[in-house]
C-alpha cells in the first residue's frame, strides 16, 4: 500500500469507506489518477486493548466502533460520539481513519481525538511515526498525513480515575453535520476535586478546537461545586466560527457555548452520582 502511494505521489489517493471521497469525486470537486482501495487490507481493521488504552486500526468501520465493548469501556467519548455521525448506512462503510484523515471541522471523531489527546500512527515507505492530536489537524481538511503516507491507527489512553464523559451537538436534522458540538471529559481525584478536564469542540472553527478557558476554569474545583453553565460560557472565547448558509458565526458561538454548559453539566452529574453511589 505505502509503496503504491510512494510511487504515484499526488496522483494517488487512499480509499477508505468512500463516504467523503466518493461524493467529492462524483461532484467533480477533486480528481485522482489512482485510487488505492484499503478495504481488503486485513491488518488495517480492528480494535485492540493496548497498554490500558485502545488501538483502533484506521479501517475500523464507525459501526464497529459504535458497538465495540472495549471502546465503550475505555474510551466512552468515542462510543457516545459515534451515533451522531451521519446515518447507520454511512457508519456501515465509513471508517474512523477516514473521518480523522478527512478532517472536516464539523466531524465528531476529530474533536474527540483532540479532547482526549489521541495519537495517530502514520506509515510511509520509510517507516512509522506517531503524531499527537494537537499537531495532527493543520487546517480545514488538511492533516499531518502526507500524500505518500497512510494513517494506520489511532491510539487513546483510558482514564484511570473517577471521570464523567458527555458528548452532544446541535444539528438541524438527525444525521446532519453539526452546527456546533462538543466532547467533554472531566476527571477528579479521590476527594472529588477536578484534576483533569478535556473539552473538544466541533463546527466552531476551521479545525476542531479545545476549549482551553473552560478546561482551565474547571481544574481545582470540587466537582460538586462547579457551575457548568457559568463555566460553559467561557467557551465562546475559545471558538473561531465562520458564518455560512447553515448558521451565522454569532449563532454558532452563542448556541455552542450554551451547549458546552449543558454537556459539562451532564459530565459533572455522572461524577457526583458516582461519588454518591461509591
Amino acid at each position: 500500500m505505502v509503496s503504491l502511494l510512494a510511487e504515484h505521489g499526488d496522483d494517488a489517493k487512499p480509499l477508505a469507506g468512500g463516504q467523503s471521497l466518493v461524493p467529492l469525486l462524483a461532484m467533480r470537486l477533486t480528481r485522482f489518477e489512482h485510487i488505492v482501495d484499503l478495504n481488503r487490507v486485513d491488518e488495517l481493521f480492528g480494535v485492540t486493548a493496548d497498554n490500558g488504552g485502545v488501538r483502533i486500526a484506521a479501517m475500523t468501520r464507525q459501526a464497529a466502533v459504535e458497538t465495540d465493548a472495549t471502546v465503550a469501556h475505555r474510551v466512552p467519548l468515542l462510543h457516545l460520539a459515534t451515533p451522531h455521525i451521519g446515518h447507520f448506512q454511512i457508519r456501515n462503510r465509513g471508517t474512523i481513519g477516514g473521518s480523522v484523515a478527512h478532517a472536516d471541522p464539523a466531524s465528531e471523531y476529530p474533536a474527540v481525538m483532540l479532547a482526549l489527546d489521541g495519537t495517530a500512527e502514520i506509515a510511509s515507505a520509510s517507516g512509522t511515526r506517531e503524531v499527537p492530536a494537537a499537531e495532527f489537524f493543520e487546517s480545514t481538511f488538511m492533516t499531518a498525513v502526507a500524500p505518500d503516507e497512510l494513517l494506520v491507527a489511532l491510539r487513546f489512553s483510558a482514564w484511570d480515575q473517577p471521570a464523567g464523559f458527555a458528548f452532544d451537538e446541535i444539528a438541524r436534522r438527525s444525521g446532519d453535520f453539526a452546527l456546533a458540538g462538543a466532547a467533554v471529559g472531566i476527571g477528579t481525584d479521590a476527594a472529588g476535586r477536578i484534576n483533569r478536564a478535556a473539552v473538544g469542540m466541533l463546527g466552531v472553527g476551521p479545525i476542531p478546537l479545545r476549549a482551553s478557558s473552560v478546561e482551565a476554569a474547571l481544574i481545582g474545583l470540587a466537582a460538586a461545586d462547579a457551575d457548568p453553565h457559568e463555566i460553559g460560557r467561557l467557551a465562546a472565547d475559545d471558538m473561531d466560527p465562520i458564518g455560512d448558509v447553515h448558521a451565522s458565526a454569532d449563532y454558532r458561538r452563542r448556541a455552542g457555548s450554551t451547549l458546552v454548559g449543558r454537556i459539562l453539566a451532564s459530565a459533572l452529574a455522572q461524577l457526583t452520582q458516582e461519588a454518591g453511589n461509591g
Partner: protein
Amino acid sequence: MADQVPLSMTVNGRTRRGMGEPRLTLADFLREQALCTGVHLGCEHGVCGSCTVLMDGEAVRSCLLFAVQAEGADITTVEGLAPDDETLHPVQEAFRDCHGLQCGFCTPGFVVSVAAFLEANPDPSDDEIRHGIAGNLCRCTGYQGIVAATRQAAAVLKGEGQ
C-alpha cells in the same frame, strides 16, 4: 478511458458477472448489468438514500461503492427482499397499507433501509424510527406514512400480526 475489468458478485441469490471500468459504481452495475432497476439514483453523492442496498447483510449506499469493491459480495436489492414474485416483504406490505409512498422514487431505498433497521432494532420507539429513517429523503409524503409503515412492519416481523 480505463481498461474494463471483470466483475462478479451474488445479486439477489444469483451469481452475476459483468465487465466494467474500475470507477463504475455498484449502483450503475446493479441497474445496467444486473438489471435491478429498483436501485434508484437520486443524488449520486450519498445523501438521498434511494440507492440503498444490502451488502453482506448491511445497508449501504450503492452510489458510494465501486462495483469492483463488491467482488464476491452478496448483494440484496429491493427486488430480492421478498421470497418470490407473488409475495411482498412485510416492509413492502406495510408501505402499501400505510401510504408510505406517493411518487415511489425514494421507496426502494426506504424499504431496504427499514428492513435493515428493523433487523437491528426489532422493537423501536417512534423516536428511534424517526432517527432510523433519517438517512433517506422523501419529497412527497411528509414521512408520517413512512413512520406508520415502519411501526406496522415492526409489529408484523415480531409476529404480533397487525
